[in-house]
């Protein structure tokens, strides 16, 4: 409790900012999951694995280009595309045949992917952990309210709204978004009016995987890149998607912010039980709004 007595306004502000920058990555990854859940109805546990693959690929590409200061940016561009390609192969090769299966079956099918991907990552990259330097222009930190705030976190903080706006544009203003929203509600109807639903499904799945890859690439410079990253994020993003409302991109944003903030502020209030706060938030949301905060497509 020592921390609580020493809690000042500036510490609280920095803590909120850090929580929000963490929420950005959670939001990006969770929005991919929620798109796939909403449109394809696949509870994709392998989403965390794709995020991990994104981080490892980013590491490999960035170190391959380590002579140039652009290494990380090249990786940020390429790694998610590689992850998206893996997604395309998964969808076209396997998932496409299983859409009529029950959710539990799909869940376990995607879980078998997490096992396979986990071991493949170990085969390809070994089991050591890796660490990637923050890109040069974001190294160091700014001083806000007398407290250091890492520049990279600020970059993440600014990126969050950009992605939110981009996803809003994509789902509300483009044809793909409109069709996929319609397909989420009534697949047969969309098929009946002559639209190739399979193509829409593939596109949404690939987009979702791409977002997981972006999340992995962005998180790479901030933490250890290691096996087990997949496990630690997958439960978090599932909970975010559930409290936000299944299939709702804005819900993913709201859920990520709630998760990031309860985590950061929980640390201040009771560091011993900081781990418990996000779960408590989820439980209270689900008890009062069992279908999530925003409108669920399910």
């Amino acid at each position, binding site marked *: 409790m*020592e921390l609580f007595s020493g809690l000042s306004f500036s510490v609280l502000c920095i803590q909120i900012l850090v*929580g929000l920058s963490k929420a950005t990555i959670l939001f990006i990854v969770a929005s991919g999951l929620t798109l796939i859940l909403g449109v394809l109805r696949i509870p994709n546990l392998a989403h965390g694995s794709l995020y991990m693959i994104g981080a490892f690929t980013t590491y490999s590409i960035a170190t391959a280009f380590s002579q140039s200061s652009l290494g990380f940016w090249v990786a940020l561009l390429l790694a998610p595309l590689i992850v998206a390609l893996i997604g395309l192969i998964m969808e076209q090769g396997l998932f496409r045949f299983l859409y009529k299966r029950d959710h539990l079956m799909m869940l376990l099918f995607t879980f078998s992917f997490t096992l396979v991907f986990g071991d493949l990552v170990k085969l390809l990259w070994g*089991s*050591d952990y*890796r660490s990637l*330097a923050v890109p040069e222009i974001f190294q160091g930190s700014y001083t806000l309210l007398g407290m250091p705030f890492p520049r990279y976190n600020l970059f993440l903080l600014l990126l969050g709204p950009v992605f939110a706006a981009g996803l809003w544009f994509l789902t509300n203003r483009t044809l793909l978004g409109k069709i996929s929203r319609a397909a989420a509600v009534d697949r047969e109807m969309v098929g009946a009016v002559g639209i190739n639903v399979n193509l829409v499904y593939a596109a949404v799945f690939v987009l979702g995987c791409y977002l997981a890859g972006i999340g992995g690439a962005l998180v790479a410079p901030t933490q250890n890149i290691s096996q*087990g990253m997949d496990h630690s994020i997958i439960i978090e993003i599932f909970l975010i998607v559930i409290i936000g409302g299944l299939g709702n991109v804005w819900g993913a944003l709201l859920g990520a912010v709630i998760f990031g903030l309860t985590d950061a502020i929980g640390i201040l209030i009771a560091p011993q039980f900081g781990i418990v706060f996000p779960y408590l938030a989820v439980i209270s949301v689900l008890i009062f709004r069992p279908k999530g905060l925003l409108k669920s497509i399910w």
Partner: protein
Amino acid sequence: MKSSLKFFCLAALIACSLLTASNAFAAETIKVGIVDTYSGPASTYTNDVRDAFALAANKINAAGGIFGQQIEFVTRDSKFKVDLGLSAAKEMVMREEVDILMGTINSALALAISDFAKQEKIPFLATFAKSAKITGEKGHRYVFSMNENTAMIGKAAATGLAKLPYTTYWIAGDDYEYGHAVAEGVWENLKKLKPEVKLLGQSWWKVGEPDFTPYITAMLAEKPDAVIIATGGRDCVPFLKAAQTTGFNKQVPFYMHTATEISTLKPLGLTAPEGVIGTANYHSYYPDTAENRAFVAEFEKAYDRTPAVGALYGYITAQFISKAYAKAGEVDTEKFIDALEGLSVDSPVGEVTMRAEDHQVMLPMFMGVTTKVEGQEVLVASDIVTISAEDAMPSLEEIRKARQL
């Protein structure tokens, strides 16, 4: 009924094939069963233990083995899970019929195996698990520790820190057994050595915490003279990274066990923070003796990487096994244990002894400060102070108290 009979035959067939899959009897060898985590981040440390053990065992075998018997070893991946590891340990004892159990970085698993070893009367040589309970509170005749433990870290660190001019401290660390044990160990000993020290406060984070910035900001706000970071294993790397990003190391000096160790510094390369005080049992460049240089050269030749602290543990374990059997004169568990008690072997850090009373190996600890060296890709420890094993070991009085003797 006919169809059910068919099914029963099928099931019986499967059962039989599983049974015959068991191994044939082993030849005249000394068999060591290693259970450890070879998946996930912890394997950064455990691979070195296994590889150095293999290297030393091969050398012993090439020289004719132990009175003609070869050392053979089998490994099992526990994936950092206690149930998997315990099952694997039982499998190696019951089916592979190993003579010695070894391994594991996971303290909970080490304690579980230790209990099993006690029942089965099989020696268990713990490598890398840091819990002081292994040879302290839960110690018994069949368990030995081949590395430093939290009590030794605490004592060694306090000895080193007491010489530094800091009086107000903040403690922060991993919110699990290791973190709390190290923090308590350092603080209790520091208070004894330097009564004027004052603790301003503590903060604890969950294991695997991805972002340390909020904790660092909170600590900076309190302006302590120095900070004790009780973080272990994989969390060391992101913490050092966050320290570098926020400039924490430039504003407040901090101590962290293994901060100077290559496993921690290597992933960070030149972006690792300078001026961090750390302790470690081993450096490939210190002590700069002929034995250490030879060991490093041999390890690098075999595995194409620099040996980290785990390599020391693996190496001395092999030495202890071979020397204890040689002294016992035959492959007999009770005689092996009697021989191992109080035994000394040569190692890259000089002669090390297995303390007879509590089965805890006596290793010196090196305290240093992270520094960049021209032309090197990884930071090294400078201004190294050696804390002798005698200064770091918990007293026999403390051991007796812990074991309630």
